[in-house]
Each structure stands twice: as structure tokens, then as C-alpha cells.
């Protein structure tokens, strides 16, 4: 595979900055499906269509005591 030095110039730098594998480039099948879903939903957002980030969901209101 081609080496990916992020620096380009007219001389050799003392150290190279070679890219480490980017997890974005190697998504598992389910990660890829989740990513595609988010992109598609965000494009179509509106009406009853909503999208909730799984990772960013937070709730800081009072919890409903009923049923406890």
C-alpha cells in the first residue's frame, strides 16, 4: 500500500508523519450501516423524521417518579 505522508514539500523532513490507520476507513459492516443511516436520515430530516445520536443522548431533566 502507498505510504501516506501528510507532509508535502521540496525537502525531506527529519521525521515523517505517516498516517495511522483511520478507523473511518475501516468501518465494520454494522458501523458502515449506522454511518450511512445517519447521513441519509439527516438529509431527509423533517416532519416526523428525527435522528438521535446514540453517543450524545443525555437527559438532565427530573426523572418521572411514576411507576417506581
Amino acid at each position: 500500500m502507498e505510504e501516506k505522508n501528510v507532509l508535502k514539500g521540496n525537502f525531506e523532513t527529519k521525521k515523517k508523519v505517516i498516517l495511522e490507520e483511520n478507523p473511518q476507513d475501516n468501518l465494520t459492516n454494522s458501523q458502515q450501516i449506522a454511518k450511512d443511516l445517519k447521513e441519509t436520515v439527516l438529509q431527509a430530516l423533517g416532519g416526523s423524521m428525527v435522528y438521535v445520536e446514540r453517543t450524545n443522548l443525555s437527559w438532565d431533566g427530573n426523572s418521572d417518579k411514576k411507576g417506581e
Partner: protein
Amino acid sequence: MVKILFINPVIREEDNPKHIPYGIALLAAIAINDGHQVQVYDANAWRKGDEVLEQVCAADDWDIIAIGGLTTAFGYIKKACKIVRRINPQTFILAGGGFLTSMPREIMDWMPEIDLGVVGEAFVTFPVVLRMFDEHKLIKIPLDFQKTLGIIYRKSNGTPVLNGVRPNIPNLDALPWPAWELFPLDIYFANSKLLFSEESFTSKRRLDVNGSLGCNLICRYCWHLGTTGDMVIEENEDGINDVRFTYGRNIRYHSPDYIVNMVQYLRDTYDIDFISFIDENMMTMDAYSKRTWIFDLCEAWIAAGLQPTCRSKGIPHDDSCKGVHWGGTSHATLHRKESLEHMFKAGCSQLVYGLESFDRDILKTLGKGSTREKNINSVAICQSAGINPIPNIIIGFPEETFESIRNTITALLELGIHAKPHFATAYPGSEWYYDYKDSIIEQYKGNLEAYIADLGDATKITATISHRFSAMELLGLQKIVELRDLRLLELTQIHWNEADQFMKPLATPKTSFNMVKKKIQAPLAKVVG
């Protein structure tokens, strides 16, 4: 020789990197021609985290790390300067571009890491600073920036000092071609498609070219930041030098031969099939050159064999088309049918028109010199020449009313335009920024820096400059314009009218030292830089 690292900051993270930073690529070429050692880290193309930036900073013993961009890159530049200073405590940090030129004093205060800023056009100032560094290294001359034009530097106690304005260069053809080879072109080529026309949508290898600098018009939301002869530096009421933006203009354009030779080189070297002209307003150059520039450019394009086959043979464009299509910027009152037809023949597929509004009264306040009729006709004239017009629409102007929004929607319906309008945004360097600066600061609870950091994309609402409409109303009106729904507009207006008596103006204009509403011309150098 000086060892320089250029950092191209990340902008518009929500969008793919589509444009090589033309200014940085030019400055890199100038530095290389002067014998310096240059590396580029294109953070915007790579979109890697801070860790990679840290490694880049540690990759060599940099003499200078140079960073710059427009105001929209402010957030990243600020963060990057902190990282650079932490990893390279001794390296000289140099900044430039629109973000700095629009407000050099504030930027030097907000970013204590910056040692020196290039203010305005950098084509001469940057190599001058590099030469000073070289001499300083070679023969140990102390760095003394007192007499260097076009910079803001720090005295030994850290206080920033803004020097006089550097004259613009008269001859753009004296510039080398940008150093495209220092950028990760594969990333840009992968994002070649633009949703503007069939030709740009099917482009596989697109690059940008800037054919000119300047624009004769004085749109009140637009900024030029010294490159168009609009900026002078004078002492303010406190006796301190500050930038002043004016209606002065130095119009300059590359010769058609310079542009065509460059595009031929790009086609032969990178197999490009599309060129985006990033000029502010190509039609102002056509008018200024007495209608010769566009004509000569198109003739040279065709003579050089760059004309696409679909245009030479008069057949529909498809995947087998050879040649280089292109797109650029136009203007509703400055374009002419003859020029447009010639442009089409040479391969032009789209032109962006900043129509902004279709309301007579709003258009009178813009400084654009267009009218509702001319705006409406421009779409038809451009289309009849075979070129796709891309109209830009804005809402939230200072004098915006329900009536003006209605006039825009009716024109959109009439012309078959679908648009999600941008919000009128007062970018630093524009007339409206200085007119409404106090209101903006108030809307950001006294924190101007927070406003600047928020400016990334005009589809996002930041500070409003509309006298009557709040952010809430503008967000609703944006949706109504997008839907082109006159019924919703009428309903909203009925409700709003009842509340109107209780409304007080949300933004009010005032005069400012930084904006002189007169034609004060910045100097133009006599000798080519």
C-alpha cells in the same frame, strides 16, 4: 534559506474539502522560487486530529510556521496556534489572510501565540519577511520590523504594532503558478463533483483558478480585505494605526495567456476536466477591460485545444466528452449576451449570480447596482446562452420586510428557482460589520470573539442585522422561502403585525473608524513585486 511549514486550516467541517487554498499554494510557490525549504500540512484535506498536527509540528526544526485563511477558519487557527506554540516554543508563528487583515489588532490580542501577521496582499510582504529571516540567520542581523510595510508585529513587550499598507502589485502575471503538487490532490479530486451543472456534477478532476483580483462594486455585505485596493492604514482617534476599508479599487487580472497556459499545464499534468474560477466577479473584469478580457480568454481557451468536444461539435455533454469545462462568477447588470455565448462556446457550464433579493427597495440598499427586472432577466439571459445560472439568495437584510420576502418568493416561483436562502451575515471587513458591530457585540453578550468563532457558514444564523426580524423569525422565514409558501408567509405576517407595535429595532447602524464610505484608493506599486 528558511525552513517553513504552511498549515492549511480546517474549514466547514460539515462539508468535504473541495478547494485547494489558492493563497497558500501561491505563497508556497513564491517561497520555493526564492530558495526556501517548504512543507505543507493541509489539515483541511486530511481532516485528522490534533495528534497528527502535533506530529507535524515535531517533524522538523521549523524556522517559521505559517497559518492563515478567511474568518471562517478562525476557530481552527486559534486552536492550531496553541498546539504549535506548545510543541515548538521557539518557532516563529506567522499568520495572514482575511481573518487577520479584517481585524489585525483584535486577532493579535486574542492569539498571543502569533509573532507576526501579514496584513493585506502577501505576495511581496511574505518574501520580504523571509529574506529578513534569512539574513538574520546567516549574518545575525537582529530582526527589526519597524519599517516593513504590510505587517503587524510585536514589540519586545508583546504589544502589537501595525505598520503602513503595502502597495498592491500592478501585474498579476508576475506571480508564479500555485504549488499544487504540495497538496494531497487525490483528496480534492475525489470531491471534484459540484452540484451546479451536469458538467461539474460529472467532473472527475477539478481544480480552481483565480483569474483576477478585485470587483468594482460595493455590496455592503462583501469584503475584499486589501486585495482589491480597498484598504488603507491610518491612525485612529487614539493615535494607533488601524485598518480602514474604503470604496477604493485596484482592478487587476491575469492575461488570458497566463490563465490558458496554466490550465493547459493542469490538463497535461493532472488530466483535469473542470476548472472553477474563484474570481470575485469575472464580469467586472469584462466590463473594466472594455469587453475584451472574457472574449480573449475564450478565444485563447479554444485555440489551446481546451474547448470541450460537446461544445465544438454541438452535441450533448456525456462521459466521452474531452476538453475542460469551467464555471465562474457573473453579475446581473454587467453580463452581456455576446460574452455569455462566447463563454458557452469555450466550455463554460455555470455561473454564480449573487442576486440576493428580488425586492426593489432591498436591492437599492445593497450597493450592487442591480434591480428586480435585471435580476429576473439575468436568469433567462444566462440560460438562453446555454449556461446554468446559480442564483444566490439572502434574507435578513437590515431593511427586510414581509413585502420584500414576498417579492423574492414570487420571483422564485416565476423563475422556477428552489433556494434555501443564506442569512445576511456581517463578516469582518464588510461595511455592515462595522455598521452593526455594536449590535453584534450586544447579541453575543459582549463577546466579539465568540461571534467571530461562530462564523463558519452563512446558512447558520449568528448575529442578525435585520432591524425588525429576530433570529426566530428569520429561521421561520428561511423555511418559508425554501418552501416558496405564500400562504404561510401571509399567516405569519398577520400574526406578526399585532406584535409589531411592541417591537423595538433589534439592530441599529452606527459609523465606525474602520469603514470609510468613500473612494480612497490604496497605493499600487510601480515596480512589479
